[in-house]
């Protein structure tokens, strides 16, 4: 059963690889011969788009840590009805579908659209629940809190406690949040589709455009280039998941 599921997950990627290296896929796999031309042709146009998506994803990660970090700290350390309410508010994007949120965003803030600010803020709101989920659990840890208060009672300042105790202890949770947020922002389609000005497309939107307007072969090549950029992030997600239980044992 496991093998069948694995094959089910991998087969489409291999099929896409076949399509991307075929001269004419409509004549069957490698119809007309094997070629790398589709990759070569796709790259120049896709490179700046992927660069833009990487930049936005990085910005969203930084904003998540700068805004979500303190929020998680407050929720973890001062549990009250107010923090519970905050949890509901932040988790709204998990329940409200992405396109619904996008429709709501462009209806409410059309003036923020041209600059791309609305796109970044939309990504931020959409990824914040994942940061909160990863960090609150780590920050609420009793052992961490004891270590912090011991360090403080020995005279360490706030900045020093944060750098030498809190951050290193939460490293796995932070890595988890960073990788997940990066992958979600990089692959995010709904908000990118609606909110983003079409002149400066994001990577998933460029793919969607290729699916609608181009032949199967170049579209396959572009999909594989995109997947190649996602793969390292994915590896990081899997590795941190494996490390995570060891910390709590």
């Amino acid at each position, binding site marked *: 059963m496991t093998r069948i599921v694995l094959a089910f997950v991998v087969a*489409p990627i291999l099929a*896409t690889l076949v399509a991307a290296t075929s001269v004419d896929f409509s004549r069957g796999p490698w119809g007309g011969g094997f070629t790398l031309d589709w990759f070569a042709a796709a790259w120049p146009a896709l490179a700046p788009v992927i660069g833009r998506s990487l930049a936005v994803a990085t910005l969203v990660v930084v904003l998540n840590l700068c805004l979500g970090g303190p929020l998680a700290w407050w929720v973890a*350390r001062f549990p*009250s009805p107010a923090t519970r309410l905050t949890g509901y508010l932040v988790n709204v994007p998990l329940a409200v579908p992405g*396109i*619904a949120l996008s429709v709501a965003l462009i209806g409410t*803030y059309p003036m923020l659209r041209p600059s791309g600010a609305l796109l970044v803020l939309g990504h931020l709101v959409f990824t914040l629940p994942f940061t909160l989920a990863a960090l609150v659990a780590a920050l609420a840890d009793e052992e961490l809190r004891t270590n*912090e208060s011991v360090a403080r009672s020995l005279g360490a300042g706030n900045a020093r406690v944060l750098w030498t105790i809190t951050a290193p202890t939460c490293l796995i949770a932070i890595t988890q949040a960073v990788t997940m947020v990066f992958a979600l922002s990089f692959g995010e389609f709904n908000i990118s589709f609606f909110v983003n000005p079409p002149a400066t497309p994001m990577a998933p939107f460029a793919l969607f455009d290729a699916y609608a307007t181009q032949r199967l072969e170049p579209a396959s090549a572009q999909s594989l280039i995109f997947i190649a950029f996602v793969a390292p992030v994915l590896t990081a997600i899997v590795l941190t998941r494996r490390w995570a239980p060891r910390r709590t044992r």
Partner: protein
Amino acid sequence: MSGRPPVGVLRGGPPGWLAAAPALLVAALFCGYPVAVMVANSFGVGQAPADTGPTLDHYLNAFASSAVRGALIASVIVAGGSVLLTLGIAIPVVLRLARDNRAGRGTVLADALLTLPIALPGIIIGFFAIVLTGRTGLLGLAWDGFSGLAYTLPGLLVAYIYFAIPRVLGPLRGAAETLDPGLADSARTLGASRIRVFCTITLPLLLPAAIEVGGTAMAVALGGYGTVATLSEGVRLLPLNVVNELTTGYRLASSSALAVLLACLSVLALVAGRVLSRTVRKGFLS
């Protein structure tokens, strides 16, 4: 805040909620408020052009339209069906992986591959369906019945299973790891058959987690737009209607009404998963 005093505050310094304020402001302004406006739009009391005065027309029109009703039913079938099928596939897989992991057999590669689809946008999964079962798809060469399957309800169901696999397997994997293998082993040594052990011990222990994960995955599948957008010439699902109302003539109010409808379905799936999971868990404990 009873018990221990909060650690990590400057004595006499600013209060803790100040640290949370920027994030809360962003969440309120760019999530809470827009969603509230969207709901107001759907009742005709929002922003122009959705400010015609209080009305239920947009909802009544939606339910009166056979296209919307069809999309609604197809959405529920595809989201619910794909998650149920994925659960059926996932339960044996996570049990197997948990057993392999305990036995020290490496599961990193399997874990990595099964997590892969979570990083892929829905549009790529839709494209996969076209490459394999589109009109010139690879599987169509093997058997004619496969060509064009991507644009049918069963084809969409398979694409959504691909979408749901990492979202179901990931959390369920954790639940399977925490199962006590001793229980199943004892039952086996006492003479229970494999099937009996699975039905009376393993499945009931895993069921609450499976139900909760299923509810969450269904909520995500209902809202998923990319996959069905790529395959939009085939079966129509509700998210397509939400977008269509906006892109053809900017009917903000009726689009908002459909978006609210979709959000309600998602919330319903989410809450039903949580509640049912808790009921089942309590049922086994008592």
